[in-house]
């Protein structure tokens, strides 16, 4: 286990920097690099709250026993494992990610956890912008901390719409780009003062500094709703949680 070496908040290594938008290859490499400590850092940085947010995302997806569901940008599999418990015994879960290392972690966790229901999960290395699935295939789709990271959010939503069965829902969890100045300031402060110093203890300061710029470049809740409706979803609603720090888009085809 890496030891945590907290940096002083205003040292030269933790100046508030906003990194430019990165291309898909750079983002893929970033997620490969953080894969070994991803789960650990999620727990530490959110004080375990990410588990609650993910359970909420799964509930909002409306998936039930027997459903065939997709988790996009599945990473190390947190949402896929939760979905698996919901759709078991007859349902199936497909977890897709473009990071080979994250999928490797997910597959290893599946073996280690060895819960019977987790056998219904399959992993696919793929691109959220070009999904290798037929039209109208899935009973539900989730995406956790993925929409902010794809290079073309419209295309990602279009692909989700395409592979979703009519009457089914997507549930997209991510940081909330708040329109409230105080919330936005607190969020930025927490990332710069807490998240980045903790991440630097794992040698990943640069990777986590990416968070602030990606939130600035993200869509607000209203913008996400508008885009989902433009793409063809019949309803779209964005819910803010944890004081507006996180948000979850729910849209139905």
């Amino acid at each position: 286990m890496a030891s945590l070496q907290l940096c002083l908040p205003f040292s030269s290594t933790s100046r508030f920097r906003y990194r430019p938008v990165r291309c898909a290859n750079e983002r893929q490499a970033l997620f490969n690099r953080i894969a070994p400590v991803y789960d650990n850092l999620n727990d530490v940085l959110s004080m375990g709250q990410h588990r609650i947010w993910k359970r909420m995302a799964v509930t909002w997806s409306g998936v039930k026993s027997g459903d065939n569901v997709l988790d996009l940008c599945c990473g190390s599999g947190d949402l896929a494992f939760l979905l698996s418990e919901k759709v078991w015994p007859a349902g199936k879960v497909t977890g897709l990610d473009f990071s080979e290392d994250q999928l490797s972690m997910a597959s290893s966790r599946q073996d280690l956890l060895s819960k019977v229901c987790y056998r219904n999960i399959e992993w696919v290395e793929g691109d959220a912008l070009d999904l290798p699935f037929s039209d109208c295939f899935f009973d539900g789709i989730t995406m956790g901390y993925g929409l902010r990271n794809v290079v073309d959010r419209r295309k990602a939503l279009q692909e989700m719409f395409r592979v979703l069965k009519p009457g089914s829902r997507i549930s997209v969890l991510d940081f909330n780009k708040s329109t409230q100045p105080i919330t936005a300031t607190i969020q930025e402060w927490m990332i710069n003062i807490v998240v980045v110093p903790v991440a630097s203890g794992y040698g990943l300061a640069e990777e986590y500094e990416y968070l602030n710029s990606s939130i600035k470049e993200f869509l607000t809740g209203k913008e996400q709703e508008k885009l989902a409706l433009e793409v063809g979803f019949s309803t779209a609603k964005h819910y803010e949680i944890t004081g507006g720090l996180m948000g979850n888009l729910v849209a139905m085809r």
Partner: protein
Amino acid sequence: MVRISKALLKEATTGLSRTLSEILVCPLSKQPLRVCEETGSIISDSIGVSFPIKDGIPCLVPKDGKILDIDDTLKDDGADDDGATKRN
């Protein structure tokens, strides 16, 4: 125990599970795929590209596909068969 169960679900020669064989399509053309047992890869005949399978995980990121040689797509014509050679 889980590893043995997973192995039983996979096609013996291809390493791809039956579930995935049934649901996957070409990420670009959305047309059916086939598994090439000789190379253990997934072939999209519609666009003439092969995709690898690593540890049972199909890799269908478009940029990671390899364009197939013309020989691989002319099997029925009795063209020279140099094996499943692929351009990098």
